[in-house]
């Protein structure tokens, strides 16, 4: 087995580094460890750190020791988004033959990143990666890689089941309140459209009062019919991928460039219902009023995820990149 991959991140980044690390452990030849400098606070604490070690800014001495050992023997040190100066200095002071990978998860000109950070680390970055959703347009020279979303499980709502035909369940949960050109998830027209359809006796808007761990959200999503991402930016988010995995009809506002980015790693055009503030009202009603269309769309989503989004297949993209870097360093 090659030496381990060490993932470093300042925050849990909605679970992306920890999930990638876990998937590498399960489905690749690489061992993998994930270290996070600090967890989210308040009601987000502990939700996205499963499978990662939280260093608490150096307060977790055992964690720092484990990190030191891991960095010494690592084949790849994979830095996600940015790491604080403490961690940069910590890694720089350790003698290692590891190669460095820098992975961008956030858009430019808004938090948390604003600008790419590779230069400030002053580390020999062998390859830059970027989340393959709307992000490659911001970092045109980086290699796009998918966010890994847990494998598809069947929907808990069979739309052909007569007993469940009474209501259409819509999940709209903009968990991250951060605004911005690309981080913004709320639009007045979408809120109005949801208000209108929720008054209908055949519609239930599923509300989640506070952030939940991803396994709980996945379970809730599997009891729903429609997942709404956002329709304002031209991109799509992890919610859209989770919606496909849960066999939901997925509504977002992806532009053709975002679609072509996903085709690049998934192989086929994703079956998103691409909407816009001017069309969201009609797009929702089409699905609510035509149950056959809704059932068919859900089935297409589940089939697409099953065929194109299996973590055990997607992880090969990362494996190949790591192996290329290791070979080049030899």
């Amino acid at each position, binding site marked *: 087995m090659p030496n381990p991959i060490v993932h470093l991140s300042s925050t849990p980044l909605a679970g992306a580094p920890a999930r990638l690390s876990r998937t590498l452990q399960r489905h690749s030849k690489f061992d993998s460890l994930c270290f996070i400098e600090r967890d989210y606070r308040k009601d987000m604490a502990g939700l996205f750190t499963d499978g990662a070690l939280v260093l608490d800014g150096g307060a977790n001495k055992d964690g720092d020791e484990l990190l030191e050992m891991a960095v010494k023997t690592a084949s790849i040190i994979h830095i996600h988004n940015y790491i604080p*100066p403490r961690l*940069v200095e910590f890694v*720089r002071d350790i003698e290692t033959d590891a190669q460095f990978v820098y992975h961008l998860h956030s858009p*430019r*000109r*808004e*938090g948390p990143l*604003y*600008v790419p*950070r590779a*230069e*400030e*680390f*002053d580390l020999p970055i062998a390859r830059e990666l*970027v989340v*393959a959703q709307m992000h*490659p*347009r*911001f*970092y*045109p*020279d*980086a*290699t*796009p890689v998918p966010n890994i979303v847990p494998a598809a499980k069947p929907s808990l709502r069979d739309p052909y089941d007569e007993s469940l035909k009474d209501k259409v369940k819509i999940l709209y949960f903009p968990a991250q309140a951060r605004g*911005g*050109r*690309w981080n913004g998830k709320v639009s007045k027209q979408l809120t109005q459209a949801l208000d209108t359809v929720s008054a209908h006796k055949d519609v239930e808007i599923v509300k989640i009062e506070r952030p939940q761990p991803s396994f709980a959200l996945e379970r809730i999503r599997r009891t729903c019919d429609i997942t709404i991402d956002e329709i304002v*930016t*031209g991109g799509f988010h992890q919610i859209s991928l989770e919606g496909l995995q849960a066999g939901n009809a997925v509504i977002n506002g992806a*532009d*053709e*460039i975002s679609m*072509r*980015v996903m*085709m*690049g790693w998934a192989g086929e055009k994703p079956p998103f219902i691409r909407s*816009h*503030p*001017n*069309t969201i009202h009609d797009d929702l009603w089409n699905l609510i009023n035509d149950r056959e269309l809704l059932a068919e769309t859900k089935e297409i989503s589940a089939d697409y995820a099953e065929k194109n989004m299996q973590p055990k297949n997607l992880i090969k993209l990362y494996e190949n990149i790591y192996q290329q870097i290791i070979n080049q360093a030899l």
Partner: protein
Amino acid sequence: MRKLRQTLIPNTRSWDSADLALQGTPVEKQKLEDVVVNPSSQPNFGVSPSDNALAIPIGTIDEFTGQDLSSRELFHRSLVTAEPRTIAKVSFWSNKLIQIDEQKLAAKITENSILLRNLDEPTELECRLYAEILSNNKFIAFRNRHLGIVDLVSDTTDMPALKGSDDLTRTIERFISKSKARLLQYGFVIAVNPANIFPIALQQSSYSSKLICVYTPDFEGSVDRDCIEKADRIICTAETAAALKDFDVAGIDIFDQPEQMLESVTSCIQSFSPKQFNMLMPVWNGFERIENIDRMALTARDLVLKLKCSESDAPSVTGSFSEYIESVSKECTAILASEGLCERYVSLIEKLDDKATRASFLKRALNDGARCEFIYA
């Protein structure tokens, strides 16, 4: 590149004390030079064409010595007087946190500007432009409730917080989060003769602001390459513009005389104003009738590319995004862009017959947030 459309006519008149109070120079006798601008066809930001006479005080008489004062002297004197619109004083090389003070501003961000004032030996014309902007209460984006001043000096040298020379990240990190939120209220950053990356740090800390860089004819310092490439508009003389011909500059406005600098800046801000319909326009080929174009316009797409391949044969993003844009450029037979984009990338759009420029334009517009659709063969 485009030149000013207006004709500038020098004029003379005297000023009353209310006019002068705006600049904070309490002098009695003034030698003044006004500039009368022809009515513009651009949206007027609340200024009626008859109000467009911009009065600019240039050169005044010292009240004690009776001597002419240069713009530079006026500028230094104006610094002594507290300017209520100053929202931050920044030392570029320091690592201290930067706080942008709260300012009561107009609701529309496209009517609010930041004037970045360089206090390190500004040139004579630089001082003059600062004075012209600060004394102008006719153009809406320069009025009290619309203009914030950030004063910049480069005097102290602390060690950077991190090893390496990435001043951009260091500077962005210095803005406290409240400051970043406040920067979102400004639609424009105006930087005159920028010599370092601070204007870019202001621009990159806010997804809503556009960077306007003005180079005065008497500027002799070295031009910051990043400022040229990242600026949303460069305002300069034809001579400077010629020196920038190898850069992929989004837009250049040229002025002939220093008297035209202020008007170039106001015209530039007007050109970036929100478009009522923001219609899709052919910018490279694309003059033929296109099916479903009305629906595309309704979905607020900023760019539409017509490709010569079918949807199934069209390239996907399998390598880097740069490689993808190269592939798409090869397949592209026509480009339509929204009115907003046409204004924003005016200099690139003029050169779209060149394949490399087409790729640069697409990369730049998408990087800046344009939403794009394709029409497949």
